[in-house]
């Protein structure tokens, strides 16, 4: 193919584009289904990619929420442990005016040892 022929082809293509006949000239109607298929594929790729992003974002947020709950749980556990020690309980009872103190005798248990 000579340079002149190439130039002619390019010029004709540009003219066809201007007139809106390019796709008809290259007989794109024969490839309509393929183009549509390509378009759907591209659309699906973008959609799936966005969905993946969204899911991962949600995963990150959930992870952060879980982490917060974990921290909250650890802090509450420490608080509970702190107040349930015998000394802390005894002190609280005293503050509340109770006469209840630590046991001075071993427990009496039912049933056989």
């Amino acid at each position, binding site marked *: 193919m000579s340079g002149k022929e190439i130039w002619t082809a390019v010029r004709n293509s540009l003219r066809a584009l201007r007139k809106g006949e390019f796709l008809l000239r290259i007989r794109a109607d024969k490839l309509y289904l393929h183009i549509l298929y390509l378009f759907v594929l591209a659309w699906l790729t973008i959609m799936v990619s*966005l969905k*993946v*992003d*969204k899911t*991962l*974002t949600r*995963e*990150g*947020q959930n992870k952060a929420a879980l982490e*917060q709950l974990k*921290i*909250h749980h*650890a*802090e509450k*556990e*420490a*608080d509970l*442990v*702190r107040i349930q*020690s*015998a*000394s802390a309980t005894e002190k609280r009872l005293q503050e509340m005016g109770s006469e209840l103190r*630590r*046991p*001075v*005798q*071993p*427990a*009496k*248990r*039912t*049933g*056989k*040892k």
Partner: protein
Amino acid sequence: MKKGAEIKDTVGNRDRIHVVMTFLSLAFLALSAAILIWIVRIQNGFHVKEKYMDLFTPAPVLHTEIPERGRILATDGRPLAISAPQYDIFMDCTVRKQEFRGIDERERSRLKKLASEGKPVPEAKKAGEAAERLWQKKADSLSWTLAALFPEKTAAQYYDEIIQGRFRKNKAGKEIGNGHLTIHKNVNLDVLNLLKKAPLFREGKYRGGIVVEPHEERIYPYDSLARRVIGYIKDTLRIGLEANFDYELHGTAGHEWRRMTDGDRQYIRELDSTLVKAKDGNDIRTTLNVDFQDIADKALRRQIADDDGIRAGIAIIMEVETGAIRAMVNLSRGKTPETTVWERENLALRQVGEQGSVMKTVTLLSLVEDGYVRSLEQTIPTNNGFVPNYRQDVHILDYQRETGRREISVKHGFEISSNYVFTYLAEKYYGEHPQAMFDHIYAYRLGEAFDFDIDGLATPVVNRPGTPGWSKTTLGTTAYGYGMSVTPLHVATFYNGIAGKGRMMKPYLVESVEKDGVVLKRYKPAVLNNICSRATADTVTRALAAVVNDGTAARLKAAKLPVAGKTGTAQVVLSPEERGGSQDPYHDMGGRKKNQGTFVGFFPADQPKYTILVTVYSYLSRESFYGGTKPALAVREIVDQIYAIDGTWDSRVAFIGHVPAMACTAESEAGRVPNLKGLGLKDALYLAEAAGMRCSYSGAGHVAAQSPEAGSKRKEGETLTLTLK
């Protein structure tokens, strides 16, 4: 012919074309391969500038996932140390300041432009100033919240700091502001959430100026309880179990690459990159019993708090059968008595010193084991309490005066803790071959720092024959507890061996390494040595029980469990600074000394379950105190409370009450109302309906009353009202 020749030529041409085309195809393939190689080579050497790369590709960032540090647990699983992030709160006081100023500047420029164009100039709106005033008003509201949450400063002080931080100038007079004003450090999640809802701060980092810096912090729920045993890691300071088991506790950091999403600009995991998940640390389950630790801590604190002259105290509770340390308390004051009592140093492991009379048990055990003392009633002459080369024992003179006797039994010498008796026995039986006694001391592991779960167990100092510290009186002084320096843990381990009938268990603090409740590694009890025969241990236990019943530890006689043990009082060797030029190692120039008093023993004496040691140390003082006083009182309190809560001595009852079986006592007579008292509702209904009566009831339980009364004449279809209780 001509035609046939043409045909022949055509075939030849076609073959040639075929060959040429094949050759061209191969050449094209080779050329393609060469071009591909060339392209790859170009690409390898070609690097796009980073700034252009950044424009087109979102840069992934490396996120490091910090593992959660493992917990340290008590023997029953209660947490002694857990990890949770704490937050340091700062404030960027300069936030939006330039934005507000910019509003007014733009307004001024606009008005200036209008004036220059000769157009009418409206009054300036000063919207920036108004916004700034509103910001400061919110800062005032924030100050009130801060004062409520952190009352160490008033609302006015917080407000002043914020405003000063907003307009702070540097030395050159340029307004720079404070972008990092410290509001409070180490706040927990609850407080952080409250702060995030506070005025101004609720607008976030870029509008409200709140700056939150999280950091992993160790929480000790029991505060100072067993802190020296649990330990900590802070910069280069590595102490206790936290340090020794750091390799189990710390876990492994993970990392993942993250990228920003195109839509809502959130960082998400980059799926194409490698992901290494963080591995949380393992948990350590200790042998510590929180209740015992609490009891021992409180008892010791009480003894220390009552007396300003006491510098420190130690309590160790060890399980006889296993050697498991159930409590280890290390309380001390600072250099002066006004300082708080706190777990400052692990004296149980580090305080190597002469232990005094508690070491007489070492001599007695050796004498009995070697057969030199065959009976505790064996007697020796009193000799006015005098052994050549040694100081006279005045206790013997008292004994002679009180009893009029010139001989004393080994048992009584042990009860009154006579130095003379043990010097005499040591010199008599080991004077010719002192190494035999020191062989025993080494066999009792009193001459070495054995392996322990936390670092810092001091090495004892034993002046045996042949060492520079050996002299002609060393044997005798060692026999009554001087001349040999050991730690309280060594002493407790030795007594635990006697309680264990000669089987000396290795003390340990860690039971197992766990992950989510699953045991990964279990540390089993180990025997350090078999130190004596069962008979010897029994004999020495009798002597120890006599010390409590008739000797120096009489304060423990009324303890709720029988205790066997020994008191010990020793003077502490002073440091050269403390001595201040005095030649006496135990006294300073003013004649002051440091005392230590110890009680060590086990309970119940007949069937030992726990070994207990309590030692208290004094400041420099002219006063003395003894192992039979404060240490014994602390031991008494500890023993009594352990007796009540341990569970071993709980009493068992088969039944707590007798509930008689319910039965209908009267048969229903024809034409009479049946007796339903004592019956359950179901049975009562059955009988009432069988008698042709309707029923209504109230309450729950068994029938307590009925109307009409049992035995009265019944009418068909009459309603019987039951009251259940």
